[in-house]
């Protein structure tokens, strides 16, 4: 090795180590910022939640207790209205499934060109506010020939519309993940009719997607206020609002319960999705 080459190599090693050090510093800085952003996000999300929880525990002066929760759960109207919300949620989910799963399936299978139009329709609840929607429904179905005001049909119809974007998107995503056409044709070639195909082939392979839609719909209906209040039906949303106007601690306790309900739903989706054979098979199908 001559001196020139030796110098050259030394310079190269020096530059290389400097570059390496500078890369490490950049990476460390990036990592620090990521942590800062994460902590800020957690604080932004959890501090109000924790404050609500902490406030709900202060009902008895001078000490923390679950008194607000005891009061909330001791109110018979809580069970009455919560029960109604559960009923509305169950009916909404059933109607949504019967309406959306076959529609989305048929659009995927036979009318793929209509997909953008259907998607647009399902997004309407994001564009039209619930108040406008409910007044429109009251005006349209409040007088003959079709009078639905005063029946729960209008409430359920409204909830189905509200849950459309969530339910349709969940089912649509599920359908995109499986080869709907080939699976349908395979089942047909084995003698299956439409009912069997939907029941035995499509529904089971959309299990996770459908459950996502179901729990999202459940969470929406359980917390919904506008429709239930304006159509004058008992529900958890109007009850919370009413309690909030009269009491200080109990509404906070109900808020926490409401949060837990939503988280419980999400947790249930995650738990059910874990190890679903359909999900894994979709990945394997691309082998």
């Amino acid at each position, binding site marked *: 090795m001559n001196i020139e080459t030796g110098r050259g190599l030394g310079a190269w090693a020096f530059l290389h180590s400097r570059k390496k050090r500078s890369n490490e510093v950049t990476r460390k800085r990036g990592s620090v910022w990521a942590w800062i952003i994460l902590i800020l996000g957690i604080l932004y999300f959890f501090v109000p939640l924790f404050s609500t929880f902490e406030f709900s525990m202060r009902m008895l002066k001078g000490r923390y207790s679950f008194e607000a929760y005891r009061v909330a759960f001791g109110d018979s109207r809580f069970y009455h209205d919560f029960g109604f919300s559960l009923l509305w949620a169950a009916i909404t989910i059933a109607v949504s499934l019967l309406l959306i799963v076959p529609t989305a399936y048929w659009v995927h299978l036979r009318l793929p060109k209509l997909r953008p139009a259907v998607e647009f329709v399902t997004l309407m609840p994001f564009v039209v506010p619930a108040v406008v929607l409910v007044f429109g429904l009251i005006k349209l179905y409040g007088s003959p020939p079709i009078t639905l005001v005063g029946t729960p049909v209008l409430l359920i119809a409204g909830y189905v519309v509200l849950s459309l974007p969530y339910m349709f998107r969940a089912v649509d995503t599920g359908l995109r993940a*499986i*080869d709907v056409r*080939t*699976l349908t*044709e*395979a*089942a*047909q*070639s*084995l*003698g*299956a*009719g439409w009912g*069997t195909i939907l029941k*035995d*082939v499509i529904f*089971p*392979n959309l*299990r996770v997607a459908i459950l996502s839609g179901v729990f999202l719909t459940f969470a929406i209906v359980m917390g919904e206020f506008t429709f239930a209040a304006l159509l004058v039906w008992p529900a958890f949303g109007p009850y919370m609002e009413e309690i909030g106007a009269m009491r200080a601690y109990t509404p906070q306790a109900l808020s926490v319960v409401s949060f837990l309900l939503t988280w419980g739903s999400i947790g249930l989706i995650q738990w059910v999705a874990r190890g679903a*054979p*359909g999900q*894994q*098979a*979709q*990945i*394997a*199908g691309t*082998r």
Partner: protein
Amino acid sequence: MAFLEILKVSKIFGSNTVAVKDFNLNIEKGELVSFLGPSGCGKTTTLRVVAGFETPNEGKVYLGGEDITDRPPNQRHVGMVFQAYALFPNMTVGDNIGFGLKIAKKSPTEIKQRVEEMLSLIHMSGFGNRYPYQLSGGQQQRVALARALAIRPQVLLLDEPLSALDAKIRVALRAEIRAIQQQLGITAIYVTHDQEEALSLSDRVVVMNNGYIEQVGTPFEIYNFPQTEFVAQFVGTLNAIRAEVVDPASNILRFEGQQVQAAQGLEGLHAGDRVMIAIRPERLSFAADGRKPNVLDCSIENITFLGSIVRIQVKIGNSSFSMDTFNNPFLELPKIGEQTQITCSREAVLVLSRGS
């Protein structure tokens, strides 16, 4: 009447996309017929018409003497194997195979017995409780085949079933498919764009192009006696060249200033007419003594070693020809640029199109 009769079937998509036109074919019981052609030639559409997934604009499909043209797919009793396997991901291998039997309301004992039978047929006994995602591609396709066969269909339709598999498994599985088809004596239609697959598997091959049938024949006929320029070009490697008729009575033609004699008659042609002729690479050989018929002067352009064969590229005038010779360790090959002579028999000269 043939067991499966496809009569003047045409299928047009949209207003003017002709997928299949005037498709006529009779398939006998126990026969395996391949539809061979490039992408978009209409082979899969024809298969889907037989399966009932497409309704033809014109024509009829008869199965066992019955018109099934308007019958829905689930009432045709036709088994189908898809390129993408199409196993039901939520069901085990056993449930997949038994699906059609369950729909046919067979007893659980019979279903169990048939599933075992099918698993044994595809050499996958003991795999009944696995899910499709736990199988390799080849195993999944075997299960798909068993599932289609479990219902004992009148016709088995296979839509490019091996396309998604790697070369080695493809060769093994195609032999297995043929063996099972022959063992069960089932009538089958096999769609493929792979000529080797079609030639090795089939009793007859239907070569398709642009929605039309180009030629129907045994693999031997299709390869050795192509009736159209397309078939000759599509099936196997071919040297095709335009030639001029010199003496129609003696079947003598000329190209690149050299004469060849064909065994095929040139009836209706006159001296000076232009025709397309073709010679397969394996029908050409070096002319040792120069006395054989059809001796052509050429120069060696390139030599490619392909394992069992050696492909020699020669230049005749301005045209390039391929010549294949079997490889052996003592093969004496000429040098590139060397002047030499090649020859072929009169039967090797195929006259493909006339008057072009």
